[in-house]
């Protein structure tokens, strides 16, 4: 045991520890779960539907989707490389074992509360209220989704007083079946695409929001998604309806433990904005990205779409994507109502072996519809980052306007940035502008910052945050601060 090999291993430990620390959400929660048998077949779907005591129409809808999905093939047009996914090698339902109906947070498993506390998400309203009094924390209503189910939703009573519904979609199916039936699949039909169809068949939970006519939601609504169980896919479904003249700002955050296997996440988000309604939807996606050699990490195949159905309605997507091994995501707007507005602000950071193919679709149908796209892609290590966008002007979209700006920033010389914009205009009065730039983090900037005392890591973080500023300023303040830190942390060690 004189072993120099031993000491060599010991020497590596601090480095390894530092590398592992980088993803601080990588812990797992030891909790008893109830799981559906592994694999996917009609019985799995019946199991999920029965677990949730769903009405017959929903089970039928799920089965229809499943049968269609069996005939579909995985899309491979994106600039993404990964080993084939074995859809039978995954669990489609995993729920923390708990009492059937929770009357208050006191009944939530303390392990779960501890998990969310560790993630910095307090689920106890009084903690928030205490924070508000001292000015420390903003008031945010939270829906927490753990693996396949929603475990807690806060501030329900406060919101209900204004007629706002904010609950898990499972609960909405029970309590507001008409609303769910009217809108579910109305923006993203069950037949939409491979992943959305899979989601329609097996979705387990997610959030449901309804803002009644003329109501301005008095606080941010947010959902925190956490994948915990091993080999479990997370298929959440979010449905958000803003009735005429209403306003809501909604945030979602996502984290997952560090695991060597890839985990599948295929969500669907549908937004509906009626006349004069406004929806602001912000995402900070920080799923586990895999290690520096590309082992593990979440496969994130997400369909997000908003319909501006009403006149003068507005949907604004803001996303900060730092996590996931693979991101396939195109939050889009269907601008159907006259004068409706769609916005897409995106920061996608990819490092190590991460791959992101992300962008948006703006479909202009109504007159005087306007859209703005600002995409900032940052690549480091061996990562690949693609912006893919479609701006489509339909024949009746008189005076439609679009402005697109895509900027890519490269750190190092082994990464890639790609821009794939498509423009289809079928109306000659339309005006569509596209600007794109690609730059490298500049030696001059780095040296300038270091000469002023900044470490290379701080310098990169500062420069990148400046590069993303246009997007980050769209986030609600308290999220923007988190996102800035996240962008900095994600790039740690990318400059050598």
């Amino acid at each position, binding site marked *: 045991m004189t072993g120099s090999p031993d000491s060599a291993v010991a020497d590596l430990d601090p480095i390894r520890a530092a590398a592992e620390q980088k993803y601080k959400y990588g812990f797992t929660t030891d909790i008893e779960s109830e799981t559906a048998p592994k694999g996917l077949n009609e019985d799995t779907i019946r199991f999920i539907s029965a677990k949730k005591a769903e009405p017959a129409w929903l089970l039928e809808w799920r089965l229809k989707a499943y049968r269609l999905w069996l005939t579909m093939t995985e899309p491979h047009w994106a600039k993404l490389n990964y080993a084939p996914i074995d859809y039978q090698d995954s669990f489609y339902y995993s729920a923390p074992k708990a009492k059937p109906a929770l009357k208050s947070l006191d009944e939530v498993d303390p392990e779960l509360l501890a998990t969310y506390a560790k993630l910095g998400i307090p689920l106890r309203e009084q903690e928030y209220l205490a924070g508000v009094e001292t000015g420390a924390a903003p008031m945010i209503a939270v829906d927490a989704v753990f693996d396949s189910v929603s475990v807690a939703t806060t501030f329900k009573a406060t919101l209900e007083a204004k007629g706002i519904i904010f609950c898990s979609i499972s609960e909405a199916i029970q309590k507001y079946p008409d609303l769910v039936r009217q809108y579910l699949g109305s923006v993203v039909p069950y037949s939409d695409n491979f992943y959305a169809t899979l989601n329609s068949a097996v979705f387990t939970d997610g959030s449901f929001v309804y803002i009644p006519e003329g109501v301005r939601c008095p606080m941010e609504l947010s959902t925190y998604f956490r994948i915990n169980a091993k080999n479990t896919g997370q298929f959440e479904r979010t449905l958000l309806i803003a009735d005429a003249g209403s306003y809501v700002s909604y945030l979602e955050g996502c984290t997952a433990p560090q695991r060597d296997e890839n985990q599948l996440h295929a969500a669907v988000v549908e937004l509906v904005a009626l006349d004069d309604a406004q929806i602001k939807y912000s995402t900070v996606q920080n799923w586990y990205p895999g290690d520096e050699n590309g082992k593990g990490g979440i496969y994130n195949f997400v369909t997000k779409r908003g319909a501006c159905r009403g006149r003068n309605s507005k949907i604004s997507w803001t996303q900060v994507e730092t996590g996931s091994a693979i991101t396939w995501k195109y939050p889009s707007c269907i601008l159907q109502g006259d004068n409706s507005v769609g916005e897409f602000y995106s920061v996608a950071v990819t490092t190590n072996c991460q791959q992101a193919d992300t962008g948006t679709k703006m479909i202009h149908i109504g007159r005087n519809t306007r859209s703005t796209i600002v995409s900032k892609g940052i690549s480091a290590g061996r990562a690949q980052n693609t912006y893919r966008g479609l701006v489509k002007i339909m024949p009746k979209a008189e005076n439609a306007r679009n402005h697109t700006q895509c900027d890519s920033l490269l750190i190092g010389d082994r990464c890639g940035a790609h821009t794939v914009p498509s423009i289809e205009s079928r109306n000659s009065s339309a005006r569509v502008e596209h600007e794109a730039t690609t730059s490298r983090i500049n030696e001059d900037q780095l040296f300038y910052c*270091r*000469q*002023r005392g*900044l470490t290379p890591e*701080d310098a990169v973080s*500062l420069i990148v945050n400046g590069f*993303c500023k246009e997007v980050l300023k769209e986030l609600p303040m308290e999220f923007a601060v988190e996102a800035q830190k996240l962008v900095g942390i994600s790039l740690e060690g990318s400059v050598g």
Partner: protein
Amino acid sequence: MLIIKDLHATIDGREILKGINLTVGPGEIHAIMGPNGSGKSTLSYVLAGREGYEVTGGSVTYDGKDLLALTPEQRAAEGVFLAFQYPIEIPGVSNTTFLKYAVNAIRRHRGEQELDAMEFLKLVRGKTRALGISDDMLKRAVNVGFSGGEKKRNEVLQMAVLNPRLALLDETDSGLDIDALRIVADGVNALRSPERSMVLITHYQRLLDYIVPDHVHVLAWGRIQRSGGAELARELEAKGYAEFAERAA
């Protein structure tokens, strides 16, 4: 304060500095003059630790320490400040944010407590007022859309806030009209102190009308060719660099 002995440096294998000797005492102002391409900017980059410049011989001792062994940020934290000939733009980062990062990075290095937002603003406002710089400049992105004069004034502001013990001013007068030059020079003069040494790198004598140096050196062919007092600058202005340019050709 600063002792440079027989300093040799290359860029891409080409030797630019061929044995520089220079000693700068505390509180002294030295001007380094010379024709274009004589190695003036290289000297400032080597002292600040820029990558790509390889020191092939000699030594630089700063405050008793081996300066060349330190990273650029360590040198900054030890009080070495380089005012850039062409200040760099950092889009999306406000001057305030940049300065705050810089001040606190240096304070951390020195084992001092970081300044909070209020303390920091108080420090910066004091400096902007003293230098006659509007607070509006603080909100703008670092050097983005700044005029030549504004960029140089911004360098002086950074210098005032970071309070270095050795300031290297690289062609601070270049690209400035006479009014801008006077404003920048006033700023530099206001920062003269017995605890602060300065090295002014300049092609023209005119800066030295406003900032009067204690010593003037002529740098050509990678070496200091002549040294003298302030009068040497005036002599060069009258005679030009012809004497030093011929041999270069």
